[in-house]
């Protein structure tokens, strides 16, 4: 698959982010380095027309002057200055041209970091009910959830037969729901609401664990992207952006989710993740080494702690194939208030550059603890 180059210069605090997006791309970086802004630009550059139509449908009137506020959230307009340049594959994306980007349909499915907060009292809000303070990608995802909730022919959301591979259902059950059943049920006021059922107890959304509340909108998003039967992917959707999939999740659940990410790649989606989780980069590092070593596909299964099976074979083989490109970038402050993106795809633990060997800063802070332990051991030995 050919790569896609997104370049953002002088937008908000992003001085220069040049991102060559592969089949699976991971963005890391400290809080506030602009990872989400960069990916919202990907959405705007590919689906500008769809965004503008959604805004118009909600009664908003996007213009060259207010489009940045409407896409990124009110207050973001000053982020665009005379020096701002955004391009996709070398073609400029301007405030004026956003409304002409794409064919009006959704080609980027964006699962934002706000996902759990979009489900209020067990139900998702429609696009127009969410204020323009909220980035448009979150409003659109909420609308997607609303549609999913409204259109369900069955009230069962998890587990659901023939919706996910059995191995995925088991992993999710073991890691997140522990034999609980997620569904939509009428409450005492006769409103349909999300419920988690364990035997006789039916728990409303706000009583769920943080991880269950975070995972459910992720899962529902995946239902949309992993159609049952023999359709590999949703027609028209080429990109899946998932922000911080690890939010609220134990590493066991993160690992289960990452296997689903590989499934998305196998189906032909191009996936972009942002993360603060070393688990995600450990996976990217392991995949890099397995590919270099031309490892057998069973080792991918072993990396995820699952038994090799014919169901997983094509998924594992797809991620090991040389045509599948894996990329990792760190967005970091080169000077105060000036963020640059750096390619750290090799994730070499012995790299000269600390950004690469320290995996974009994700390991530096735990290293400080281990350094303190090491110093204590050495000092006690010298004193013996």
């Amino acid at each position, binding site marked *: 698959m050919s790569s896609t180059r997104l370049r953002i210069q002088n937008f908000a605090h992003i001085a220069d982010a040049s991102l060559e997006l592969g089949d699976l791309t991971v963005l890391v970086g400290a809080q506030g380095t602009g990872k989400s802004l960069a990916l919202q630009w990907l959405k705007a550059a590919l689906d500008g027309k769809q965004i503008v139509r959604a805004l118009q449908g909600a009664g908003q009137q996007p213009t060259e002057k207010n489009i940045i506020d409407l896409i990124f959230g009110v207050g973001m307009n000053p982020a665009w200055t005379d020096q701002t340049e955004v391009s996709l594959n070398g073609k400029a994306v301007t405030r004026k041209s956003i409304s002409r980007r794409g064919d009006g349909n959704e080609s980027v499915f964006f699962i934002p970091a706000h996902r759990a907060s979009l489900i209020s009292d067990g139900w998702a809000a429609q696009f127009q009910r969410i204020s323009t303070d909220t980035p448009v990608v979150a409003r659109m995802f909420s609308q997607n959830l609303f549609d999913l909730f409204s259109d369900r022919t069955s009230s069962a959301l998890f587990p659901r037969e023939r919706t996910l591979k059995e191995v995925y259902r088991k992993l999710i059950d073991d890691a997140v729901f522990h034999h609980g059943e997620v569904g939509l049920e009428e409450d005492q006021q006769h409103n349909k609401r999300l419920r988690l059922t364990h035997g006789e107890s039916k728990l409303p959304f706000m009583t769920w664990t943080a991880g269950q509340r975070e995972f459910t909108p992720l899962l529902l998003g995946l239902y949309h992207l992993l159609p049952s039967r023999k359709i590999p992917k949703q027609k028209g959707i080429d990109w899946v952006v998932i922000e911080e999939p690890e939010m609220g999740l134990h590493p066991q659940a993160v690992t289960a989710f990452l296997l689903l990410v590989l499934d998305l790649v196998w189906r032909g989606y191009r996936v972009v993740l942002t993360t603060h989780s*070393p688990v995600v*980069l*450990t996976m990217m*590092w*392991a995949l890099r*080494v397995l590919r270099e070593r031309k490892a057998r596909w069973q080792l991918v299964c072993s990396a995820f702690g699952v038994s090799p099976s014919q169901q997983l074979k094509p998924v594992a083989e797809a991620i090991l194939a040389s045509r599948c490109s894996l990329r990792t970038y760190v967005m970091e402050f080169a000077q105060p208030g000036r963020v640059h993106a750096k390619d750290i795809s090799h*994730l*070499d*633990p*012995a*790299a000269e550059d600390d950004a690469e*060997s*320290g*995996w974009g800063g*994700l*390991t530096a802070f*735990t*290293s400080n603890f*281990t*350094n303190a*332990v*090491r110093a204590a*051991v*050495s000092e006690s*030995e*010298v*004193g*013996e």
Partner: protein
Amino acid sequence: MTPIRSILTTGTLSQQVKPGLSALKSTDKKHVEDAIRQRFADTLDIDTAFLQTHAADNRWDYLLGDEESSTVVALEPHSAKSDEVSTVIKKKQKALEQLRPHLKAGKGIHRWFWVASGTVQFPNVDKVEKRLAEHGITFVGPILKKKHLR
């Protein structure tokens, strides 16, 4: 007095200390960054030094006398695989035993560095990092650099 000589009692081991990096085998010198080679005033090949007396034991490779910090560090070029961690830890433990009779009171090795003699095959977030830290060993990748000596 050079750093290694300053921590050793006068004896057979002290006599095997060599100037600069000359105790390192030529194939191992590449594991020390060019820019810091001058700061080592003396070196000792303890693997060879203890070969006769501890032939069956695990043995650490080198001691390096860092003139800039007036400390002695230990260097072990060794293959960087997860299943070699236990061996490197044993080597250090044995080196402490082997060196003890030769050390002046209150003196010791300041830092223990494992350099990769081949491709690195474990990540730095692995439990390897914590195991090594608990044994006072720093894995530095293929080359010992200035930043490691801070």
